[in-house]
């Protein structure tokens, strides 16, 4: 028999970026807010402090801060006729766990999507014609525009404390910034970080080709900064232990550094850790939810927590899993294309070229998560999809993030993987290479989706979620296009050798090597209830007192890292709740 706790105004599921943002925004309204976090509590001190955090094996290789598959995982298959098997240990993607979520151990590459990305299907149809959209590609508009979201990107960037250089201020193109970005209403809160040697070489080579290099926007602070919540950041020291690690230096924007200490001072906010939500409970009328049932690990019992408003702020995959387990919304059926929950799961198409120079020393250990120089000349808004034969785009960057030797020991092509030649090559080449990477979009497809697995269960006896996903020709063409562009730039830099790694014709999804923790879709937003889970305010179409944050709302993946976009969406949704919903709770669309 579940324990029942006293009712709260708001229950927040997951205390990462969006959970922290929504908790703060609604606590400011004077509401009683309770956040439930399934993982451990974490703070800069003691969890990320020097020198213990500078431990590659524990955090970078054994994934101390990540989700433990034993507690929570999913199954994966390539196609509808395959049997899905469990993702038994982490590889391709690394979902976060604990207070701060993945926001504690990301790299901090913080972007705004381009205007056409928000209305991708309309943009493609209007610009190139509907007939260029391949059979089975299920891209959609988001139901919200960049223009509507702009003030909220601005808000998120000021809270997170982003370093960068504007390239388009209210329509005016600014030299040195990204000329292809959507118009910004204000400059970045902090100037760009300094960048490392590899980025400098890339910048010069790109410029010589007539391209438009600019500093990669960064959630690694370039100077001392105080955000609107009164939280303080200090300048990044390029320690080289960024992604997979918590920041020892209060430099990487995270819920801990930017929000949580201010939030914890609010008497109407509380949070519980080791409290995994098992189910969102639907009211009898099916039009609202009544609260959540969670497992309280310390008490070793299930608890029903009633609430007027439920905010689902877990990692994107868990958002979808919880909706499926809770029976909220119609599950997607790939055979008919009907239903919405689990529809349009998408990933990120990345690739890169490494350049080896006998006579250059890059000191690869000098790095930070969002170091570097990027170009957006081959971005979604700049490519003629009809001419190139694909829909999508990439940003391209050089900027070293780390030289941690277990994970990062790139050696010239042809070097044996072990033995004397491997050892000597490691000594000779460790500091003598750099990379240029492509970070690209991934479209959504009829047979790439999420549902419940028929066989495997979690520690609570609930079905695991099943991911059906594989690479498609459209996205492989996109990344091959980027390979050609990057290799042109690389060759112009006169390296002694290059080695490229991109998906190619016939590439199948491989869950083993790390690729990206940018899993999106499955609880998508949109203009119509028939084709999306959420309306434009991230409000559930069926249950109006349930809002679902995060990258699960993206109808296909953007060409950028997802955090900037989901931060902006969270503030947009919070504003709609504060200004409109609370006074008159109802479907906002």
């Amino acid at each position, binding site marked *: 028999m579940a324990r029942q706790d006293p009712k709260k105004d708001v229950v927040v599921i997951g205390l990462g970026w969006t959970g922290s943002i929504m908790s703060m925004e609604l606590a400011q309204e004077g509401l009683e807010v309770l956040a439930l976090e399934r993982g451990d509590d974490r703070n800069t001190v003691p969890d990320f402090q020097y020198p213990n955090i500078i431990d*590659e094996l524990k955090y970078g290789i054994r994934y101390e801060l990540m989700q433990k598959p034993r507690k929570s995982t999913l199954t994966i298959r390539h196609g509808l006729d395959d049997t899905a098997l469990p993702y038994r240990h982490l590889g391709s993607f690394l979902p976060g766990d604990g207070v701060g979520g993945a926001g504690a151990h990301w790299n901090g590459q913080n972007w705004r999507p381009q205007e056409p990305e928000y209305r991708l299907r309309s943009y493609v149809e209007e610009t190139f014609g509907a007939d260029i959209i391949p059979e089975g590609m299920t891209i959609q508009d988001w139901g919200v525009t960049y223009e509507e979201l702009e003030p909220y990107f601005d808000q998120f960037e000021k809270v997170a404390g982003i370093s960068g250089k504007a390239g388009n201020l209210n329509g005016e193109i600014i030299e040195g910034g990204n000329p292809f970005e959507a118009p910004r209403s204000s400059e970045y809160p902090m100037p760009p970080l300094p960048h490392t040697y590899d980025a400098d070489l890339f910048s010069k080579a790109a410029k010589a080709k007539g391209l438009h290099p600019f500093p990669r926007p960064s959630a690694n602070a370039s100077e001392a900064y105080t955000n609107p919540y009164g939280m303080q950041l200090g300048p990044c020291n390029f320690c080289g*232990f960024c992604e997979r690690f918590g920041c020892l230096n209060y430099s990487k924007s995270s819920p801990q550094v930017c929000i949580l200490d201010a939030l914890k001072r609010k008497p109407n906010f509380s949070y519980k850790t080791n409290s995994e939500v098992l189910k969102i409970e639907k009211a009898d009328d099916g039009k609202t939810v009544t609260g959540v049932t969670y497992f309280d690990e310390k008490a070793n019992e299930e608890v029903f927590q009633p609430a007027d408003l439920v905010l689902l702020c877990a990692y994107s995959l868990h958002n979808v899993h919880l909706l499926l387990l809770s029976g909220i919304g119609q599950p997607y059926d790939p055979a008919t294309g009907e239903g919405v929950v689990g529809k349009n799961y998408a990933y990120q198409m990345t690739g890169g070229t490494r350049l080896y120079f006998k006579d250059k020393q890059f000191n690869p250990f000098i790095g930070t998560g969002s170091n570097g120089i990027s170009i957006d000349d081959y971005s979604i808004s700049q490519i003629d999809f009809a001419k190139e034969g694909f829909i999508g785009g990439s940003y391209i960057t050089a900027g070293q993030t780390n*030289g941690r030797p277990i994970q990062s020991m790139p050696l010239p092509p042809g070097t044996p993987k072990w033995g004397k030649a491997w050892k000597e090559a490691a000594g000779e080449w460790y500091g003598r290479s750099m990379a240029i990477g492509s970070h690209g979009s991934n479209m959504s497809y009829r047979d790439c989706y999420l549902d419940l697995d028929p066989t495997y269960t979690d520690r609570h006896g609930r079905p695991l979620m099943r991911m059906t996903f594989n690479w498609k020709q459209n996205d492989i063409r996109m990344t091959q296009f980027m390979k050609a562009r990057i290799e042109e730039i690389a060759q112009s830099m006169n390296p002694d050798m290059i080695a490229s790694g991109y998906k190619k014709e016939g590439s199948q999804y491989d869950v083993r090597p790390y690729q990206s923790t940018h899993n999106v879709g499955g609880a998508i937003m949109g203009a119509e209830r028939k084709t999306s889970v959420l309306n434009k305010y991230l409000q559930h179409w069926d249950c109006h007192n349930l809002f679902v944050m995060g990258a699960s709302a993206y109808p296909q993946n953007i060409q950028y890292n997802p955090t900037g976009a989901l931060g902006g969406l969270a503030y947009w949704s919070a504003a709609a709740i504060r200004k409109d919903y609370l006074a008159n709770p109802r479907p906002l669309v």
Partner: protein
Amino acid sequence: MVDLPGRPSRRSFLKATVASAAVTSIPIGMPHAKAAELPSLDAYKPVYFDAAEWSFILAACARLIPSDGEGPGAIETRVPVFIDLQLAGDFGKAADWYMEGPHTPDANPLLGFQSPLTPAEIYRKAIPVFQDWCKTTHGDAFEKLDPETQDAALTSLEKGEVKLAPELRDFFSFLLQNTKEGYFADPMYGGNHGMQAWVHVGFPGARGSYTEWVHNYNAEYPLGPVSISGERA
């Protein structure tokens, strides 16, 4: 003075200070500080491996990262000790992994690890199979073969020419990955003795602060590594 678990104490700070004071007296140019005396690998008492397994691990590590040529080998850096301790700990037990059945160990490798066995069990079951293969194919146990034949045997194992049951098929990749981990991880895990592997490649270890070097392009970084415990080399 009370040491709180997980917190650096005043006492450990003092210990680190004493240690660093000691190493600053070492003449510049010495490749690494003399680390505390530890038992030789032959005298080391493994926590996980039995004697036969230990002989194999010593011999295999000595070929995966050999001692000849530039740079330290797996033996001088005590990589076998690292592997022994890892297999005795959470990694060996697959403590964080989802190990529920049903298992399909012969699944498409792109779908990842699917064995019902933990890494420690895979080492335990695969080593005798590989030893039998060495005896049949090359006439003796792995550790008794000459180095060239050992390399050939490891190459066969790597290429999947040694018939291992599907649930053991990740054996070589674990062995190689764990060997490199032991070579490059912080010395507190038992390998990378004296931080020799970090000195070899030029990784400064746990220094963790390089702001003033960001714009010092194409210049050799002058400082040697430090470890998490404050050891210097």
